[in-house]
């Protein structure tokens, strides 16, 4: 009797172990299967969300093409800092701004070729450079405009791995955000004008910077994650060098500007001096180029939280000027730009 109950007990323990092992196997297989299903669904969701802007059509539709004598390139930091409306008001020069998040040197290079063909050669270019300029890659949604694949970090080439959704997490996030944005556009009943600086050149012209700034009461006790300067050429630096060469050959006046960073970001980017030296070195044989560093506490109050979108945040990996910061920035930038234009015109004239 005792032997039989022991035998039954060991048999049930064996069954339980087998079931556990089977459950673990099912779990692993199901994770891989669901991963592929979600990843494929996200891939399918991408094209209709991303390929909606027709850049060429936008440039062709630009009114008074010849009057756009100035071109502004850069990333989101330039988008928030340099505004055609101010330049037009202060200097009477019409400019076209293409600066936006996700646009690295490669995008700017391709864009410039198209812009030159469709709109014409600009007389001046303002290029907003960043600490991370040689680290960023143009994103796939932007490169789609030229029917090109971005590199892996830009979401153009998918990374492999056991879990594809995890390996391509930034791309997944972008797809979800863009899908929501697209849904919002469809859902909103048009009541008046919907602002879209990427689609409408008039919106880009009228934009004056973000009206957001959220001060935090107390410091969150964290350590900074010091960030070394990613050296030239990095991911897309060669396209930046190509652009500089092209502008020298074409006699286009180029103003490279380093817009102010919030003090937290400035502290994090501890090799700022190295970055400045790198940009100066890159333009040393380019008489058509000037470089001005506005991310200098002696020039601009980097500690003023209200001047930055990320003002007051103890952790920030990047920073953008707020509407109020733009006003202060323009007090420095516009006179410099005026001097640059006058100097450049003199150089052209003589």
């Amino acid at each position, binding site marked *: 009797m005792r032997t039989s109950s022991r035998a039954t007990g060991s048999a049930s323990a064996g069954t339980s172990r087998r079931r556990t092992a089977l459950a673990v196997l099912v779990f692993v297989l199901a994770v891989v299967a*669901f991963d592929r299903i*979600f990843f494929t669904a996200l891939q399918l969701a991408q094209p209709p969300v991303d390929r909606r802007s027709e850049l060429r059509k936008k440039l062709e539709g630009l009114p008074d093409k010849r009057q756009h004598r100035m071109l502004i390139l850069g990333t989101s930091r330039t988008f928030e800092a340099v505004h055609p409306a101010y330049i037009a008001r202060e200097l009477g020069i019409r400019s076209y701004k293409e600066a936006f998040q996700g646009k690295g040197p490669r995008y700017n290079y391709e864009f410039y070729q198209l812009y030159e063909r469709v709109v014409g050669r600009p007389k001046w270019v303002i290029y907003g450079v960043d600490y991370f300029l040689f680290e960023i890659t143009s994103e796939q949604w932007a490169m789609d405009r030229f029917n090109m694949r971005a590199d892996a970090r830009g979401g153009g080439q998918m990374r492999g791995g056991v879990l594809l959704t995890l390996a391509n997490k930034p791309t997944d996030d972008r797809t979800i955000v863009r899908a929501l944005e697209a849904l919002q556009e469809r859902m909103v009943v048009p009541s008046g004008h919907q602002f879209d600086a990427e689609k409408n050149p008039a919106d880009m012209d009228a934009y004056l910077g973000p009206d957001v700034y959220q001060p935090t*009461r107390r410091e969150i006790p964290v350590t900074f994650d010091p960030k070394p300067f990613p050296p030239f050429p990095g991911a897309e630096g060669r396209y930046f060098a190509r652009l500089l060469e092209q502008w020298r050959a074409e006699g286009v006046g180029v103003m490279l500007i380093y817009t102010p960073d919030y003090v937290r970001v400035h502290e994090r980017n501890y090799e700022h001096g190295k970055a400045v030296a790198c940009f100066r070195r890159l333009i040393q044989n380019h008489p058509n180029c000037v470089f001005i560093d506005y991310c200098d506490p002696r020039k601009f109050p980097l500690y003023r939280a209200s001047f930055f979108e990320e003002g007051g945040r103890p952790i920030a990996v990047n920073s953008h000027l707020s509407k109020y910061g733009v006003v202060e920035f323009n007090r420095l930038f516009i006179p410099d730009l005026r001097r640059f234009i006058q100097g450049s015109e003199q150089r052209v004239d003589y």
Partner: protein
Amino acid sequence: MLFNSGAFWSFLAAACCAYYLTPRRFRWVPLLAASYYFYASFRPSILAVLVFLTGFVYLVTRVMQSAHSRTTRRLLLVADVGVPLLALVVFKYVGLIAELLEYLGSPFTRASVGPINVLAPIGISFYTFKLLSYAIDVYHHRIAAERHPGYFALYVSFFPQILAGPIERPGHLLPQLRQSAAFDLSAIWAGVKLAAWGLFKKMVVADRLAYYVGEVFVSPEYKGFHLVLGAWFYYFQIYADFSGYSDISIGISRALGFSPPANFDYPYLSRSVSQFWTRWHITLSTWLRDYLFVPITYAVMRRIDGDTWLGIRTETWGYVVGMSATMLLGGLWHGAAFTFAAWGALHGAFLVCSYVTKKARRLWCRAIGLSRVPRLHHAVSLVVTFQFVTLAWILFRATSFENAWTYVRYMQIRLPAAGRVNLLFGALVVLVLLAAEYVQRHADEVWVVRRVPVEVKAVGYALFAVMLIVFSVDTNNPFIYFRF
């Protein structure tokens, strides 16, 4: 190293292996080393504060335990409580005190001390409370002073709890540290499940809701009904954020063989503000009850001769003063800002009003017939409590009184078109949270959960794991309560 970062999970795997591979008697060694390493990973210098306070309280409490004179014991208790409190005040509140002094002195002098930026050691509010409860419990002979410095240091610095609780009592955790549990796969599995659910709450629910809530709070002007919804969502955001953190912390502790106390009990189902405080941040509210409310209440009652004073019963005086002071201090504990103090004071006012009007409300409910329909009565109480608590959250979340006032002033019935998709997505996320918690709460009653074979459950867990990856927000957002 935040709980929602990859580095933390690698660290945890290494810590668990070291813990279980060490003989039971010496398991405190890898656990203490892991705890100090984890804490120092935020800023090495803050470890010095932790070690100093731990050493100080350990030594003084040992001396206090062996002291015979009542006066000596009292003096040692004052030192034992005073030094950690002083550290808390210096690191956390000196800026606020300077601001207050400057404001009070402004009519007389133009002198300004300028902004004082002291970088408070992370988790100081939490481990200070652990140290205080240990000293007070030893003083009152509720527990004996810990002889082993290693166990005591581990009690203070135990890495799953040091950043934001749960605030463990020494009488509960110290015995567990002395008798470390055997390796138990089912306990580890239960811990992993809970921690995964905590990660989901934090990275999917709280961080996704943060987009909508942040957008609404940052500039409330003309946001209409989004302001009402934003406040409701903030309730769920902070709940998912903090209870998510607590679940991760409790899950890790369980995987290591400990049984920490629960910190949340579905607070959004509270039917009164007093019930809310038995369901929200339970370890803090019970701490405040035992070490602040009860002593203050008895002190007030002892000072009143007779059963009434000014026609009001002594118990009522005790409750009103005790509760108001406790909630005000509890509010300030959350942060060095007057908005937090006001948040605590508002909760104190709610509780006092609730206590004073209890009889009248019961009579009123009976008069209108609400007591005859208990389900409706419960539903009404739940909705009303939810609104009161949400109103207080506005003060908690706002950056200033002006911001809070602007927020309330612009509330409207009209729902602007902008932001509707984020709203829908937020609502979906909240529904998922509520549905999942309903299933958890009624797991024994839900037929599907009870009868489903383990292989099918494995498929469900797999789906959950992949959804956690896909829908989580990849920003390494710090937990809200790390600030406090």
